[in-house]
C-alpha cells in the first residue's frame, strides 16, 4: 500500500515537495504568523513576493480592481530590496520547514547580476530562485524580457552565469510565441518553466471617464484566465523537455488535474489563496479522491495523459 503522503509528492530537480500546489509569487507576506504550518497545509512550497536589487515603493493610485471571476492588479513589485530581504526576512524563512522559492525581478542585466550575486553568497539557504521575465528591461527600451526569445535568453543566461542553484523562469503570456520563449529559456539554462504570469488588461471607470489604473494596464488573474493558462501550458509542454509549472487561475482540484494532464509537473496558485486560504488543502484532497476513483497510484502517473490524442 502506498503511503498517502507519497502520492502527491512532487519533485522538480533537487526540490522535493509534499504536494504539487505551490503558492504563486505576490500573495504571501513574510509576517511570521502566516508561516505557521496550519495555514500552509496542502502547500508544497511558497514563492516569495518579488525581490528587486533596490527597494521599490510600488505603484500609486488604485492597485486592485475586481473583474468578472477575476481581478486586475497593479501593485508594482513593492518590496524592500534584496539587502533587506537577506537581513530582515531570510532568517525567518530559514526556520520554516516548507521550501520557499525566491522570486526575483530585474530591470537590467546589471540588476540580475547584482541581485543574484548577493543571493549566491547564501545559496545554501535559498532552495530555488524563480526569475520573473514579465517585467520591462530598461536596456531594451522597456520591452518585456520575456516577449521575444532573445530577451528571454539574455535574462536567463545572465542569471545562470551568476546563480548556480535551481533556477525556474516565470514566463509572460505577453510573449509573441510562448513555445519559442520556453525553448530559449531552456537552452539558456532554466531548470523549470512557470507558465505563466498575469495577462495584461485594463478597465475604465465610466463615472470618472478615465482608466482605473494610473499605469492604465494591469495584470489579470483569477478563474477567468484558467483556460488561457492551460493553453499556454499545453503549447509549452510540446516544445520543452524541462518541467513546466502551470500557473493562472488554478482554483480547484479539477483545474490542477487538468494542468497535470496537459503535461505540467506542478501548479502555482495565487488568486485562489486571496479568496480561500484552505484551497491548497482542498485541491490536494480532491486530487487524492480523483486518483482513488480512477485507480491511479501516484499523481505523476497522470502527467501528460491528455496528450495521447495530440
Amino acid at each position: 500500500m502506498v503511503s498517502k503522503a507519497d502520492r502527491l509528492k512532487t519533485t522538480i530537480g533537487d526540490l522535493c515537495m509534499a504536494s504539487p500546489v505551490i503558492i504563486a509569487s505576490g500573495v504571501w507576506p513574510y509576517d511570521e504568523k502566516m508561516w505557521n504550518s496550519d495555514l500552509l497545509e496542502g502547500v508544497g512550497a511558497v514563492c516569495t513576493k518579488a525581490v528587486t536589487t533596490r527597494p521599490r515603493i510600488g505603484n500609486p493610485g488604485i492597485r486592485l480592481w475586481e473583474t468578472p471571476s477575476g481581478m486586475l492588479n497593479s501593485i508594482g513589485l513593492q518590496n524592500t530590496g534584496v539587502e533587506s530581504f537577506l537581513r530582515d526576512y531570510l532568517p525567518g524563512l530559514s526556520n520554516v520547514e516548507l521550501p520557499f522559492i525566491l522570486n526575483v525581478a530585474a530591470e537590467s542585466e546589471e540588476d540580475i547580476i547584482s541581485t543574484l550575486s548577493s543571493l549566491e553568497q547564501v545559496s545554501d539557504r535559498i532552495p530555488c530562485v524563480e526569475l520573473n521575465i514579465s517585467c520591462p528591461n530598461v536596456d531594451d527600451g522597456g520591452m518585456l524580457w520575456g516577449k521575444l526569445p532573445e530577451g528571454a535568453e539574455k535574462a536567463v543566461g545572465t542569471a545562470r552565469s551568476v546563480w548556480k542553484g535551481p533556477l525556474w523562469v516565470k514566463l509572460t503570456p505577453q510573449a509573441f510565441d510562448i513555445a519559442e520563449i520556453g525553448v530559449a529559456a531552456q537552452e539558456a539554462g532554466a531548470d523549470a518553466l512557470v507558465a505563466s504570469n498575469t495577462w495584461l488588461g485594463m478597465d475604465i471607470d465610466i463615472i470618472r471617464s478615465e482608466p482605473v489604473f494610473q499605469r492604465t494596464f494591469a495584470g489579470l488573474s483569477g478563474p477567468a484566465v484558467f483556460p488561457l493558462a492551460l493553453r499556454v501550458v499545453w503549447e509549452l509542454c510540446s516544445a520543452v523537455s524541462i518541467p513546466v509549472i502551470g500557473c493562472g487561475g488554478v482554483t480547484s482540484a479539477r483545474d490542477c488535474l487538468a494542468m497535470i494532464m496537459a503535461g505540467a509537473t506542478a501548479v502555482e496558485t495565487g488568486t485562489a489563496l486571496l479568496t480561500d486560504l484552505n484551497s491548497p488543502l482542498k485541491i490536494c484532497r480532491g486530487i487524492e479522491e480523483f486518483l482513488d476513483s480512477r485507480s491511479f497510484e501516484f499523481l505523476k502517473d497522470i502527467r501528460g495523459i491528455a496528450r495521447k490524442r495530440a
Partner: protein
Amino acid sequence: MGDFSGRVRSVRKISEEIFCLEIDCEEISENAQPGQFVMLRFPEISDPLLGRPLAVAGISGSAFDVIFRIVGRMTKMLSECTPGQSLVVRGPEGRPFGEPSAKKTFLVAGTLGAAPLIYACKSFSKQQEFEFVLGVPDRTWASYCEWLTEVSGVAIEVFSEDGFLGQNGNVLQGLPERLEKDEEIWACGSEKMLSAICGKYPKDSDRILVSLEKRMACGYGGCMGCVIDTVYGKKRVCVDGPIFRGSEVCWNGL
C-alpha cells in the same frame, strides 16, 4: 486568523439601503476585538470573486454583526441573504483599537463608520466615559440614527448636513476646541472627515485613533493592494491597520 464557515442568523433592514447581518461564527465571535474586521464572501462563487472587508460591529453569543450599505453587486447580494445562508468568513483581521487609555474618549463616526465604534462602545462602556458623535448627510438616515442609539446603548450626538437630524453641520462641531491631556478620539469615516479631525488638533493627533478603509484583496497582508503612506513608509491597512494614530498617516498622500 483563517477562513471559516459562517451562517447568517438574522438580517435586519435598517433603511432602504442599510442592513445589519448577524452571522454565526465562533472563530470570530470568540476572538474579534473592537476595531478588527472580517472579509465576507459567498462559498463556491467566483463572481463576485473577492471577500469584502467589513468591521465587526458587535458580538452576541456565537454570532457577530456587520453593517453595510448597498453600493454594488456584492452588498446587494449580502442584503438579499436569508437566515441559514452560508458565508465564508476570513478573520478576525487587523490591529484593534486596544484598551482606552484616556479618561474620556470621543467616538466619532461618519455614517457607517459607526460600525467598529458601536462594538468598542459596548465592550468598554463600563470602564470608560464615552461621548458618541455621528455625522450623516440628510434625513434619509433617520432610521439608521435610531437604530444606532438602540444598539449602542448611549446617547448619540447627531449632526446632519441638511439640519433635519440632530444639529445642522458636521462632526467637527461636536468636538471640543482643545483635546485635554486625558482625552482621546477614536474615529471612523471618510478620509476627508478623518483628515479634518486630525487637522483640528495638529499637536495632539497622536491621541486620535483612526480606522481606515481601502480596497482589499487578501486582508492578511499578502497582496499589498491596500497600502497607504505613513511617516514610517508604506503600511498595509489590513494588517498594520486598520487602526492608525492620526499622527502616523500622511493625509495628503491618501
